């Protein structure tokens, strides 16, 4: 309980919220992300609620009042397909973030705090980071077979080393601060120091990193789906929509451009949000304010 209040409810954090709201990048990013999230959550209200209903006579309708995003080669409403497809894309992104947070914190904290584990863990991370990230994700997804779950696993494996690295770097700094020495001098053990002092003070860079991981995961999931290594096409995701629309790109631009725009807006929003977070939570700014 004490840790949770230390993480989220302190007076200092209320101060940070005020700073965040004054940061333009954060506000724009958060607004974009909020619009995307709202549209996706309200999909049953905003659309006919049937992204897979066929209407062959209505095929290849360009965007209009009836079909804001047009229709595809089988006459399906693209607006519904993009909004419902976003559910899967963001869900996959969210799971990648959750796995990243859990394993990134675990491995980063172990490597940074216990020096004996640092060498082995970081060499393992080096090995994974030596592969181009999308290539590695493709390899893992191909090896495990195409499904939404394997896409999540593949993307998590690709980004966990990066998250662990960033956390390790912060842990290395915080563990040498005097309040950690004071805690040790008072008789605290490693676990107390790690969970009570070190991790709560390493959350800022982690939060920033996770917002970027979310953006990359949405983007990479589209790549995997486009290549047929993501979720099966029965449940559309943004990557699958682009892949399906590719064959008709000359006749019906809206089949690829509009899902692509949805990805672009989401990723841009998440990146701006991450930039804003970083600016506000940057340790150098912290010294300035105190």
């Amino acid at each position: 309980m004490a840790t949770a209040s230390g993480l989220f409810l302190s007076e200092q954090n209320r101060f940070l919220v005020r700073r965040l709201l004054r940061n333009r990048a954060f506000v724009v990013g958060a607004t974009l992300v909020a619009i995307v999230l709202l549209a996706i959550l309200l999909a049953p209200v905003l659309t006919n609620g049937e992204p897979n209903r066929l209407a062959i006579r209505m095929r290849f309708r360009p965007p209009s009042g009836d079909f804001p995003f047009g229709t595809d080669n089988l006459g399906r409403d693209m607006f519904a397909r993009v909004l419902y497809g976003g559910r899967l894309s963001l869900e996959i992104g969210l799971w990648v973030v959750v796995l990243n947070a859990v394993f990134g914190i675990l491995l980063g904290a172990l490597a940074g705090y216990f020096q004996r584990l640092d060498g082995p863990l970081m060499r393992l991370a080096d090995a994974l980071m030596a592969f181009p990230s999308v290539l590695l994700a493709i390899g893992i997804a191909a090896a495990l077979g195409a499904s939404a779950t394997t896409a999540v696993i593949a993307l998590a494996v690709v980004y966990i080393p990066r998250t662990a690295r960033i956390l390790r770097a912060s842990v290395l700094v915080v563990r040498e601060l005097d309040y950690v020495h004071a805690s040790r001098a008072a008789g605290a053990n490693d676990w107390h120091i790690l969970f009570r002092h070190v991790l709560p003070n390493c959350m800022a860079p982690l939060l920033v990193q996770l917002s970027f991981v979310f953006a990359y995961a949405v983007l990479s999931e589209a790549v995997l789906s486009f290549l047929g290594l993501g979720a099966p096409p029965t449940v559309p995701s943004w990557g699958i929509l682009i892949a399906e629309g590719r064959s008709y790109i000359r006749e019906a631009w809206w089949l690829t451009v509009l899902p692509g725009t949805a990805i672009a807006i989401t990723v841009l929003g998440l990146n701006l949000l991450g930039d804003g977070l970083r600016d506000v939570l940057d340790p150098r700014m912290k010294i300035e304010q105190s």
Partner: protein
Amino acid sequence: MTTPLLEVEALSKTFVLPGRTPFARSAGAVRAVDGVSFKLPRQESLGIVGESGCGKSTTGRLVLRLIEPTAGRVLFEGQDILKLDANALRTMRRAMQIVFQDPQSSLDPRMTVEEIVLEPLLVQGARRDAKLKQRARELLELVGLSAAHAERYPHEFSGGQRQRIGIARAIAPQPKLIVCDEPVSALDVSVQAQIINLLQDLKDTLGLSYLFIAHDLAVVRHLCERIAVMYLGRIVEMAPAAALFASPLHPYTQTLLASIPAAHPRDRRTRPTPKGDVPSAMAPPPGCHFHTRCAFARPRCSAEVPALRTLASGRDVACHFAEELEEGP
């Protein structure tokens, strides 16, 4: 004779510097603390002074076993703290605390003042109840803060107030020894005096002993019965504070004292000021470490390490020619 509160014997710490690349050889070693011995009687305080890099802070951390020494013994009330297991060490830590130099980094920014001050008690197994909260408020008032400050966060306080919070944390488990690692050197001069007075009051009322580390001789003069002067990892002179100021024996002590600015032009000193910089701790000069900067250096000084010895007059000095210096020119 009663056992002293703290007894340090031939304490040494060598830091091995890692190579530049993972497979490179070690880049060398620094003997940060080199055979330091001293005794600290109960309710007395010892000042350790010296230039930056002389190993005084490392000595303070070795005494608390915040870092493990390379060699030597640390006896606290006759018990070797280096031989204690984890449980016994935790119990022992109640009796010895530390106050840090930098009031910014010595307080966890995510904890309230109350949590900070009570932490030593909580990690020792105290229950967080109304009595403990009351204790936090008493401690804050003892160091000159108000009980109303308990719910605030460190960033809301000035440097001097933060240092008071750090002191409240140190006295919380009712220790017998507090290592003060340059507790005032990061503060404004006007605030320095307040903190020194606070430490003096606490020493008198709580019967504390300080191991007071400073680079400023004037600061330790008021607080400490005895002063040890360190140079490149070794104690070069140890004397009662009054005697050290009245007649410094080691040439290095003399130059240190000469570097204190005189309050009045009439008092301007004629003693030699230090020449040159401190040599690298990675490659200290052979023999007496100070011979490269010493006005009285002779061939023997660069060949033979002078031991810290007690002169006929009862003074402890590590200089081959201490007797001559004692008689004066």
